[in-house]
C-alpha cells in the first residue's frame, strides 16, 4: 500500500522558494520599510538569484528523492515571526499631517504604510526645502482646474503642516530647540508653546526643562501661497539628539533582530536548494521535466516579477511625490486622484455638452484609481501597479503558445522575457503612463484572439471585442487591430462555414461595442461627440511634421480640431514637402521595427530590437509559429505599425514599440523549438 514517492516530480523546492522570497518581500519588516524590512546586500541578492536559478534547474532536472517539508516549515515559521515583529514594532520618526488651505478645504487623501491607509505620513526627519516635501495632493491639478504646466505647486499653494513626535527623557533634563522655517512656525512641548521659529535661527537656541518620562513635541507650520516650503527642526535632550516616535511607545524589537531573521530565511532557503542540487546531480537520479517545467517556469517568472514589483515599490511606500509639471504622467495621476475623490470622470465641474472628449486615455486612470483606493496614495502604488501588470506577461506568453514548446525552451523563453522586461519595461514603472497597463492588456487580448480563432465560439469572440476595447481605451493605436482581426476572422479559418465566420465577426463587434459604450456615451453626453477619445483629426497633421520641428503653437492650432480644416492642413503639408513626408513616414516605420536611433534627439540604437525583428519575421515566414496564432500576431503587428505611422511612435522614449518586440521575441522562440501543433494549424 505504500505509495512510491520516488518517481513524483519534485517541484516542492521551487514552491518553497517562491513562497519564502515572496514572503520576504511583502511582509512588514524593520520599522523603516512599509512592505519590507531588508534592503538586500550584494551577498543576499546573489543568494536570491542563485536560488531562483537553482529552482528553475530543478524543474528541468528533478531529483527522484522526495522533498521533505521540514525546511520549508522552518522558513514559514521564520517568516511568521518576522511579520509579527515587523507589525508590532514602533517606527522612529514624526507623524506628519498635511493640509491644503487654498483653493478649497482639501481632502488630502491617505498615505499607505504597512499595507493600510493612514491620514498621516511618517517622516524620519524634519528637514525639508522646496519640493522635498513632495506631497501627493499637489498633483490634483484636474480637481482644481490648474494647467499641467503650472509652476511647482508646493510653492504656489498655501499649506499647513503638523508633525507630532514622542520622546522619552531618561531623567530630568534640558531640551534645546534648533528650528527655522518659512511662514509661521510654533513648537509645542506637551501643552506649552516653547518656541516660535522664523526663517532665521536664533544665535542661542531656546532651552526648556523637561521631566523624566514621555513628552510630546508638536511642530506646526503655516506656509503662505507664493513661498516655498522650508522646515528644519532638531532637538537635543542633555546634549544628545533625540529620536522621536509617532506614538507614545518605545520600539519593541531591535532592527538587528529583524535583519537576523531575514538572513536566516535567506540562508536556509539557499541551503535547501543547494542540498537538492547536490542530490540531483551527484546522485544522477534525475528525470527530465517537460510541460511541468514550462508551467513552473511561468509561475516562477510571475513570482520573480511579483517580488520585484514589491521590492522596487517598497522604498516608495509612505513616500509621496509632487510630480513635475507637464507631460502625461501628471495628467494620468491627476485624473486617477480625481476619480478617487470625486467619482467617475463625468461632470468635471462642467455642464453636460460643455465639456471635452477624453484627451488622455481613461482606462489607465480608472485602474490606477482602484489601486490607490486599495493601497493608498503613496508613490509605491503607481510602481506596484505598473510592475504587477508586467507580472502577467509570463502567463500570457505561456498561454499564447509557449506551453507547447519543449520544456527547456519554455524556461529559456521565460528567462528571456524577464531580461526583456528588466531592460525595457522596468524603466517606465516609476511613472504613471499608460503603456505599463497597455502592454499586458495587448497580450491578454492576443491570447483571447488566438483562442477565439481556434474555437470559433461566439463567447470567445465576444471577449476578444471586450479586450480590444479595453486596449483601445488605454492606447488608441489598438483601434486598428479591430479591423485587422475582423479580416482574419472572415478570411483565415477557411475550413469553417462562412456563417460561423460571420457570426464570430459579429460577436467581436458586439463585445467591442458593449465595452466601448461607457466611454463613448460619456463623451457624447459631456462633449456632444460620440468618440472614444479626442478625434483622430488632431493627430493626422501633427504626424506629418518631424518631431524636431513640432511646436506647441502648432499642436494648439484650432484647425486641428475639425475634420475638414485638419485634412486640408494635412494635404498642404504633404504638397509642401512630399519627399520629406515620405521619409518621415519611413522613419516612423523603421523606428517601430527597432532602429531606435531614428527617434528624435538621436537616441542610441538598441541592438536587440532589430535583431528580434529579424528573428521574429523569420519565425513567422518559416511557418514555425502555428497558423492561427501567427495570423493574430501579424494582424497586431500590421495594425500597430499602421497606427504609429498615422500618429507618432515616439512619445517619452520608446515604450510604444515594446509590444511589437515582445511579439517578435515570442515568435523568435519558435525558431529554437517547433510548435507541436504548427503543422496541423498552418
Amino acid at each position, binding site marked *: 500500500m505504500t505509495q512510491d514517492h520516488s518517481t513524483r516530480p519534485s517541484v516542492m523546492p521551487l514552491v518553497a522558494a517562491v513562497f519564502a522570497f515572496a514572503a520576504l518581500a511583502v511582509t512588514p519588516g524593520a520599522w523603516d520599510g512599509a512592505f519590507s524590512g531588508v534592503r538586500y546586500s550584494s551577498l543576499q541578492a546573489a543568494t536570491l538569484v542563485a536560488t531562483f536559478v537553482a529552482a528553475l534547474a530543478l524543474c528541468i532536472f528533478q531529483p527522484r528523492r522526495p522533498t521533505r517539508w521540514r*525546511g520549508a516549515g*522552518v522558513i514559514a515559521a521564520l517568516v511568521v515571526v518576522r511579520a509579527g515583529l515587523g507589525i508590532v514594532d514602533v517606527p522612529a520618526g514624526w507623524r506628519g499631517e498635511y493640509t491644503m488651505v487654498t483653493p478649497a478645504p482639501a481632502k488630502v487623501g491617505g498615505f499607505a504604510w504597512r499595507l493600510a491607509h493612514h491620514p498621516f505620513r511618517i517622516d524620519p526627519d524634519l528637514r525639508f526645502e522646496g519640493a522635498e516635501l513632495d506631497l501627493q495632493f499637489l498633483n490634483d491639478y484636474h480637481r482644481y482646474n490648474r494647467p499641467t504646466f503650472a509652476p511647482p505647486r508646493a510653492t504656489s499653494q498655501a499649506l499647513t503642516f503638523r508633525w507630532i513626535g514622542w520622546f522619552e527623557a531618561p531623567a530630568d533634563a534640558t531640551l534645546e530647540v534648533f528650528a527655522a522655517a518659512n511662514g509661521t512656525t510654533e513648537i509645542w512641548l506637551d501643552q506649552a508653546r516653547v518656541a516660535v521659529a522664523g526663517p532665521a535661527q*536664533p544665535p542661542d*537656541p531656546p532651552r526648556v526643562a523637561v521631566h523624566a518620562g514621555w513628552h510630546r513635541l508638536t511642530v506646526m507650520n503655516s506656509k503662505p501661497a507664493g513661498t516655498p516650503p*522650508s522646515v528644519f527642526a532638531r532637538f537635543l535632550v542633555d546634549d544628545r539628539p533625540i529620536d522621536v516616535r509617532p506614538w507614545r511607545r518605545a520600539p519593541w524589537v531591535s532592527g538587528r533582530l529583524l535583519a*537576523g*531573521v531575514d*538572513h536566516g530565511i535567506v540562508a*536556509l532557503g539557499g541551503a535547501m536548494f543547494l542540498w537538492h542540487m547536490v542530490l540531483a546531480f551527484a546522485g544522477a537520479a534525475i528525470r527530465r521535466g517537460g510541460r511541468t517545467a514550462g508551467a513552473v517556469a511561468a509561475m516562477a517568472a510571475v513570482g520573480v516579477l511579483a517580488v520585484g514589483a514589491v521590492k522596487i515599490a517598497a522604498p516608495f511606500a509612505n513616500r509621496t511625490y509632487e510630480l513635475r509639471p507637464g507631460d502625461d504622467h501628471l495628467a494620468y495621476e491627476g485624473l486617477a486622484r480625481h476619480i478617487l475623490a470625486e467619482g467617475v470622470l463625468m461632470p468635471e465641474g462642467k455642464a453636460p455638452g460643455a465639456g471635452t472628449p477624453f484627451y488622455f486615455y481613461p482606462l489607465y486612470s480608472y485602474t490606477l484609481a482602484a489601486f490607490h483606493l486599495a493601497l493608498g496614495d503613496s508613490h509605491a502604488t503607481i510602481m506596484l501597479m505598473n510592475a504587477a501588470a508586467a507580472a502577467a506577461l509570463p502567463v500570457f506568453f505561456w498561454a499564447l503558445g509557449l506551453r507547447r514548446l519543449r520544456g527547456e525552451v519554455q524556461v529559456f523563453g521565460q528567462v528571456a522575457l524577464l531580461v526583456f522586461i528588466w531592460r525595457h519595461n522596468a524603466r517606465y514603472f516609476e511613472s504613471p503612463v499608460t503603456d505599463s497597463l497597455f502592454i499586458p492588456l495587448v497580450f491578454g487580448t492576443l491570447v483571447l484572439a488566438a483562442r477565439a480563432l481556434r474555437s470559433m465560439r461566439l463567447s470567445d469572440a465576444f471577449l476578444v471585442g471586450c479586450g480590444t476595447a479595453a486596449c483601445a481605451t488605454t492606447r488608441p493605436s489598438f483601434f486598428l487591430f479591430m479591423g485587422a482581426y475582423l479580416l482574419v476572422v472572415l478570411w483565415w479559418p477557411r475550413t469553417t462555414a462562412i456563417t460561423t465566420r460571420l457570426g464570430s465577426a459579429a460577436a467581436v463587434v458586439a463585445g467591442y461595442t458593449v465595452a466601448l459604450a461607457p466611454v463613448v456615451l460619456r463623451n457624447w453626453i459631456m462633449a456632444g461627440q460620440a468618440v472614444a477619445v479626442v478625434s483622430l483629426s488632431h493627430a493626422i497633421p501633427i504626424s506629418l511634421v518631424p518631431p524636431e520641428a513640432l511646436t506647441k503653437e502648432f499642436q494648439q492650432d484650432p484647425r486641428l480640431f475639425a475634420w475638414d480644416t485638419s485634412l486640408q492642413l494635412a494635404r498642404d503639408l504633404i504638397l509642401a514637402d512630399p519627399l520629406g513626408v515620405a521619409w518621415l513616414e519611413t522613419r516612423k516605420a523603421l523606428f517601430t521595427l527597432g532602429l531606435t536611433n531614428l527617434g528624435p534627439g538621436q537616441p542610441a540604437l538598441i541592438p536587440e530590437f532589430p535583431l528580434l525583428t529579424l528573428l521574429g519575421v523569420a519565425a513567422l515566414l518559416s511557418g514555425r509559429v502555428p497558423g492561427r496564432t501567427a495570423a493574430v500576431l501579424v494582424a497586431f503587428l500590421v495594425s500597430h505599425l499602421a497606427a504609429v505611422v498615422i500618429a507618432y511612435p515616439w512619445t517619452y522614449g520608446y515604450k510604444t514599440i515594446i509590444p511589437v518586440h515582445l511579439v517578435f521575441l515570442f515568435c523568435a522562440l519558435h525558431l529554437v523549438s517547433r510548435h507541436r501543433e504548427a503543422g496541423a494549424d498552418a
Partner: protein
Amino acid sequence: MRSMSAAVLVAIASASLAGCGRADTLVVLRATYGASCGQAAGNVTLAAAQACDGTAPCTLSITPAVLTDPAEGCEKDFEVVWACRSGQAGARRTYLPKEATLGATAQLTCD
C-alpha cells in the same frame, strides 16, 4: 536538518552582532555662511545637513556645489554647530573667520 538549524542560528547571530561597534554619526544643528556680511543665522543649515547628516567625520567644503554664495564681494565667515548621536561632548561648533573663502573646508568629527 540540524545543520540547517545551526546555519540559521549562525546567520541570525552574525547579523545581530554585525551592528556592534558602529561608528558614531553626527547631525547638523545650525550652519551660517556670511553672518559677517549680515546674513541670517542658519541660512545654510539645510545644505550643511544634507551634506553631513548621518556621517562622521564630515568634511564640509565651502564650494558652490554645497553652499551658494549669499553675499558676493563681501568677506564671509562660516559657522557650523553639530552634535553627535552618542551625545558625547554636546553641541560642537566650528568657526571659520572672514577668510572662509570658496574652497575652504570645515572638519566635523565625533571623536
